């Protein structure tokens, strides 16, 4: 580290470098984004708009929680988008059917519909998990294959037409409802984040996800049931995606087979920007929450700045690649700073 000898300017560079190594690229991107969008639009930095960002990002945030589990164990889940769609379609169909049969029992319809939707999503996760954990299929192929299977089933069930007929209350409460000015989906997301936090950082099984991604062989020799851990990873990932699917269904008031197509990319981007390693074993939940918020912030800012939606896709892809490059540079710095 020759730049140690340089005075003031060098000190700042070293400080920035250390900050970058410690926190990753996310804080830097967040600051840049906030400055740029505040300059581009007067409406950006208002409490109302920021609450909007939060509400819009919860769906991605919940999916990213599951994606993070898959990445932590050294895999991916490319089927999260399909799980979102399938749970939406199945949930809406069951809810509409129960509601049509018993119009008085609104809550029964909502409950059965939601459970059916989440169960359908989890089923995809069970197949993913079985393939990865017991048949050693690579997570990439397994979840890519299941993405096609799930999407096909969702389209087959609906014939490509949106599913209507759910009780009004479902959308009113879970889509548009709010308590103390905080939207209902945000509550759900907060509960899931809190539960996952306790599970990951306060129980042995939570630690095992990191161990399996950190070194599968070492984990196995340390008496960890690696197959069960991998299986559970994909079931959990599917559970989170399915919950997001039901919340989005409530918001849209219809069951849709073609929602969630951008979810695999966006959820992986949220995790990677937040410093989750693609090699497995590294990543913090609270950073992933921030990562999802950051992507929501970018999308919201670009909307306010009237950037075309096609171009927004370009920006998102570029950000993802930038984050991966930054992760590589960071690893090099880690090696040079370790003294």
């Amino acid at each position, binding site marked *: 580290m020759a730049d140690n000898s340089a005075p003031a300017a060098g000190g700042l560079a070293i400080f920035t470098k250390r900050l970058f190594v410690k926190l990753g690229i996310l804080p830097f991107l967040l600051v840049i984004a906030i400055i740029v969008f505040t300059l581009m639009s007067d409406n950006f930095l208002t409490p109302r708009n920021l609450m909007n960002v939060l509400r819009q990002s919860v769906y991605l945030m919940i999916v990213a929680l599951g994606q993070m589990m898959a990445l932590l164990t050294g895999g991916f889940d490319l089927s999260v988008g399909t799980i979102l769609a399938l749970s939406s379609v199945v949930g809406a169909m069951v809810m509409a059917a129960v509601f049509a049969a018993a119009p008085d029992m609104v809550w029964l319809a909502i409950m059965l519909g939601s459970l059916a939707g989440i169960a359908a999503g989890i089923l995809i996760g069970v197949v993913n998990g079985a393939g990865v954990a017991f048949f050693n299929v690579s997570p990439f192929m397994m979840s890519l294959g299941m993405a096609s299977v799930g999407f096909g089933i969702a389209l087959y069930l609906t014939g490509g037409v949106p599913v209507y007929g759910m009780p009004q209350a479902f959308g009113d409460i879970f889509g548009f409802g709010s308590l103390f000015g905080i939207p209902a989906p945000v509550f759900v997301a907060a509960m899931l984040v809190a539960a996952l936090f306790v599970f990951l950082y306060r129980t*042995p099984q939570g*630690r095992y996800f*990191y161990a399996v991604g*950190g*070194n599968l*062989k070492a984990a196995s020799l340390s*008496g960890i049931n690696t197959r069960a851990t991998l299986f559970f990873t994909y079931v959990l990932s599917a559970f989170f995606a399915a919950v997001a699917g039901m919340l989005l269904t409530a918001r849209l008031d219809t069951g849709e087979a073609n929602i969630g197509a951008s979810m695999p990319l966006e959820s992986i981007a949220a995790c990677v920007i937040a410093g989750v390693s693609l090699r497995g*074993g590294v990543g913090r939940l609270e950073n992933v929450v921030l990562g999802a918020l950051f992507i929501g912030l970018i999308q919201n800012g670009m909307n306010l700045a009237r950037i075309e939606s096609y171009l927004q896709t370009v920006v998102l892809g570029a950000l993802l690649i930038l984050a991966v490059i930054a992760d590589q540079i960071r690893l090099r710095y880690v090696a040079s700073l370790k003294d």
Partner: protein
Amino acid sequence: MSDSLIKQHAEMRATTSPLLQTQGVTKDYPGVRALDGVDFDLRAGEVHVLFGENGAGKSTLISILAGANQPSAGQILFKGEPVSLASVHDARTYGISAVFQEFSLIPQMTVEENLFLGAEHSRAGLLDRARIRREAQEILDELGFALRPEQRVDHLTRAEQQMVEIAKAFRSELQVLILDEPTASLTNHETDHLFQLIGELTKRGVGIIYITHRMAEIHRIGDRITVLRDGRYIDTVDAREATEDDLVKLMTGRVVGAVFPVLDLSEPGDVVLDVQNVTTRDALVADASMNVRAGEIVGMAGLVGSGKSELMQACFGAGPIGAGTVTLNGRDITGHTPRRNIRDGFLYLPADRRSEGLMMMRSVRENVALASLDIAPFSRGVFLDRAGERKAVGDLAARLNLSPPLIERAVDHFSGGNQQKAMLARSLTRRYDLIVFDEPTVGVDVGTRASIYEFIVGLARGGVAIVLISSDLPEILHLTTRAYVFYRGRVQAELKADQLTEENVLAHFFEREAA
């Protein structure tokens, strides 16, 4: 023999400087100095044997000479001229070729494709397949290897793959040939053939650097022997005059006594582990029987791949058992998973800490606690006890002199010896009746090695049954109360304390296979 000597002297006079020479070559890895100012020279037409323990620096030296690795300091001279060998390709242009233990073959390709990989003949931009086939066949014929050029490498046996690897070195004009334990997987017939070939090469003036552990081979083809120890050059001796005792003395040094603690163990207790006629499903271990008693340290000696590790891994549940029974404290544990064995008080600590032992990017704290998160003080009920964990790991780090004593730092950022301590600390996180240490001092400096030995003996004093798997002869001699010697998957001998001498172990280690 005198003929070749005269010839050799004639050649030495013809070329005043050696064929290949190193001056003060040093190689540093983070935390470890693998080579420390090594001077080495190779004459044209000689077979120069490199001799030393595992980790003495032989492999590092030849990888530098082959261009696969660059020295941190020092220089390499080829025919008296300083050269820089920045890549394997560079070394090849000087006629230096190496055959490593790890194969550099692409399994999905054919023999001929592998032979000419990176130097394919072409005509008008297209592969000249006829010429490749013809020349591949020529090389194989010249070497007398019964292989067909169009066979796929992954369909060959290990010995045949070894032949392809050797044939690869013959593709270009040879000046220096480096062979790293080339006979490890060859039959006697194939070995004879290889030696004949080496004889022909040396007549042509090719210099050969030869790594082996086998005394018989040294006496049969070696001209000079250079001994390395702990990365340092020790001595160069004439192969014809050196006795086995001389070499072992040079190889291990006489400081060994100070490194090893006094073995003041009381009489061993009941049998803890009893292995009866175990054969693994992959047949790397055949019909092996052994036992370990409480409070004794049992050694498992033999070459790498002789089955000593594979047997203990199978007992631990990390590899499938085909036949036989394993009993722990009188209960049958054949086929139990590592998870169950750990809970029953049986721990195996693997040899390769980077790939099998540690999560390199996670903290020391998490690595030490990993196998015991289900019990106090690491957890309470279903939740982790983070304060208890920090305290327990902190205490262990202090007890093992972890340096620096930062338990939140990633394991990757510690030296090899301290990484090893982090893994060994696992054995103190639970009450174990049986602990298997697989090569516990590989890549560890002498100081840490002494503290690891003390640690192991301390466990045995406390009544734990210990199995020490080691390819390092002094460890077996000084640290065990009894030893089994493995050879090609079988227990070749059981040596009691009074029979544990260099001679006896080596007799089963090296000599039987020369016959």
